[in-house]
C-alpha cells in the first residue's frame, strides 16, 4: 500500500484555488482603487477653488460662503424626504410582510419595486408639471394659518416650485428603496421569536413591537441611510422641481438649492475656476455621504451585543 506523501500537491485543484483567490483579491483591489481614484480626482480638481482669492469665487465671498447655503439646502430636502418616506415605508413593509393576505402581498411588493424603476427625470417632470401646481393652494393655506412658524412664512410661492415640493418628490423616490429593504428584513424575523411573543399573549402589533422591529432595527437604519444617500445625491428631480435661489428658512417660498442640482445646472456652461468650484462642491457632497454612512454604522454597532447575531 502506497500512501500519498503529505508534501505532494495535487496540481489542478491547487491551481484553481490560486486563480480564484487571485481573482477575488483583484476584485477587492479594483473597488478600493476606484474609490481612491474618485476621491483623489475630487481633491486635486477642487484645490484651485479652495485656494483662490475669495473675490474670484462665485458670489465674491469665498468658497465657504458659496457652499454652506447649498449644503443646508441639500440637507433640508433630504430630511423632508426621509421624514415623509420613513414612516410610510415601514408601514407599507409591515403590511406586506405581516398583515396582507398572501396574494395581495406579492402584488403590492411588485408595485413598490416598480416605483423604483421609474427614471428620476419622470419624477421631476411630474413634480414640476403636476404636483407643484396642485399643492400651491395648500402652501397658501399654510402661509395664512401657520405663517408664524418660520418654516411656513409667507408669501407662498405662486408656482409651488419650492424646497418642500422637491422634498415630497424625493420622498416618493426613496420610498421604494426603504420599503423593499425593510420588507426583506421583516420577512427574515425568526419564526421562533414571533411565536415566543404570540405564545405570551401578544397581539399582532405587540408581536411586531417585541420581535420584529427590534430584530429589524439595524436593517431599517441601513435602509434609511440608503434612502438618504439617494435623496442627497438626487439631481434631475430637484433641478426640475425647485425654483432655486438664496437660502431661506421658509419651505414654501421659492429659494434654496441643493449641491447636486447646483452642479448639474451650472456645469455645462462652466469653465476655469467655476468648474473647480463645482467639483469642490461635489467633494463636499461626497464627504457628507461618507459621514452619513459612518454615523449609520456607528449606530448599528453600538447595539451589537443585543442584535441577535450572537
Amino acid at each position, binding site marked *: 500500500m502506497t500512501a500519498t506523501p503529505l508534501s505532494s500537491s495535487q496540481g489542478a485543484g491547487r491551481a484553481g484555488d490560486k486563480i480564484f483567490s487571485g481573482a477575488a483579491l483583484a476584485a477587492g483591489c479594483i473597488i478600493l482603487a476606484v474609490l481612491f481614484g474618485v476621491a483623489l480626482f475630487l481633491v486635486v480638481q477642487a484645490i484651485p477653488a479652495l485656494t483662490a482669492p475669495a473675490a474670484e469665487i462665485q458670489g465674491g465671498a469665498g468658497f465657504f460662503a458659496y457652499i454652506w447655503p447649498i449644503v443646508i439646502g441639500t440637507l433640508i430636502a433630504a430630511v423632508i424626504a426621509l421624514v415623509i418616506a420613513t414612516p410610510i415605508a415601514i408601514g407599507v413593509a409591515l403590511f406586506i410582510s405581516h398583515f396582507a393576505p*398572501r396574494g395581495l402581498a406579492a402584488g403590492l411588493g411588485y408595485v413598490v419595486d416598480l416605483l423604483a424603476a421609474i427614471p428620476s427625470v419622470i419624477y421631476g417632470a411630474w413634480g414640476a408639471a403636476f404636483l407643484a401646481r396642485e399643492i400651491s393652494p395648500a402652501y397658501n393655506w399654510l402661509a395664512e394659518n401657520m405663517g408664524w412658524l418660520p418654516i411656513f412664512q409667507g408669501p407662498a410661492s405662486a408656482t409651488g416650485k419650492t424646497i418642500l415640493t422637491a422634498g415630497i418628490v424625493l420622498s416618493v423616490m426613496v420610498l421604494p428603496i426603504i420599503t423593499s429593504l425593510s420588507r426583506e428584513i421583516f420577512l427574515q424575523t*425568526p419564526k*421562533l*421569536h414571533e*411565536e*415566543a*411573543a*404570540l*405564545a*405570551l*399573549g*401578544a*397581539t399582532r402589533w*405587540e408581536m411586531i413591537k*417585541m*420581535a420584529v422591529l*427590534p*430584530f429589524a*432595527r439595524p436593517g431599517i437604519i441601513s435602509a434609511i441611510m440608503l434612502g438618504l444617500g439617494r435623496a442627497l445625491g438626487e439631481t434631475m428631480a430637484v433641478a426640475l422641481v425647485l425654483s432655486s435661489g438664496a437660502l431661506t428658512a421658509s419651505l414654501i417660498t421659492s429659494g434654496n438649492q441643493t449641491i447636486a442640482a447646483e452642479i448639474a445646472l451650472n456645469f455645462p456652461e462652466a469653465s476655469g475656476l467655476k468648474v473647480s468650484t463645482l467639483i469642490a462642491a461635489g467633494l463636499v457632497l461626497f464627504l457628507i455621504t461618507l459621514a452619513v454612512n459612518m454615523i449609520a454604522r456607528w449606530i448599528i454597532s453600538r*447595539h451589537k*451585543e*443585543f*442584535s*441577535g447575531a*450572537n
Partner: protein
Amino acid sequence: MSKRIDVKDLNVYYGDFLAVEDVSINIEAKSVTAFIGPSGCGKSTFLRTLNRMHEVLPGARVEGEVLLDGDNLYGPGVDPVTVRSQIGMVFQRPNPFPTMSIRDNVLAGVKLNNKKISKGEADALVESSLQGANLWNEVKDRLEKPGSGLSGGQQQRLCIARAIAVEPQVILMDEPCSALDPISTLAIEDLINELKDQYTVVIVTHNMQQAARVSDKTAFFNIAGTGKPGKLIEFGNTQNIFSNPTQKATEDYVSGRFG
C-alpha cells in the same frame, strides 16, 4: 391557579389536510401529562391547539372543543390572545428575545397589553420567576446582560421563567429538552417536577425515558402511514403505559420495536 383541560372530539386541519383525528383527552390540573409517539404523529400539532398557537399558520384550523375548566377555548367571542396569556408555552429551541436583557425577557409577557408595574414589583417578580425556573443564582449578577449570552439550557430555563412570570393556568412544553445536553436536560426535568405543584404541565417528548421520569400520565399518539391523520392510541397512567399497555401498538413503541 391551575386548571384542567378537557378535549372533546378534536380534529385538527392544515387547510384540507386532516393532521390529527378525533382526539378526546382529559388532562388533570397540577399534574404532568406527556405526549409520546413517532415523528409526524401530530403530537406537537395537537399541543399547539391547546393554546390556539396552531392557527398562527395560514390555513390551519380545528373542529371540536377544548375546555379549560369548562370554558371552551374555541367558543364564539373567545380571543386567542387571552387564551395564550393564560396558557404558557415553551418551545423546542430556546427562544429568548435577543434584543432584550435577561430582566426584560422575564418581564416581556407582563408588560404586554400596556400593564404598568412599579420597579419594586418588577424586581420582585423577576426574582421569583427566575427562582421558580432554578436560574436565579446563575444570573442574578447579570440581569442587564442579553439573554442570548446564556448557554442553551440556561436560555431554556429563562424561557420557562418568562412563561411562569405571567402566572399561567397551564404550561405547554414542546420537546423542551431536544436541543439540550444531558445535564441541562436533567435541570429542566427537575424543574418540571417542581412546576407541577403549582401548574398543569403538558409536555411533548421524543424521549421515552424522559416521559417515564417526569410524567404522571402519558398519551401515546400514532400514525397509520404517510398522509394519514395522527390519532390518540392510548392514554393512561405513565406506569401502566410503559409496563402494561393495553394496545399492541403502544407496547411495540415503548419497547422499541418500531418508531
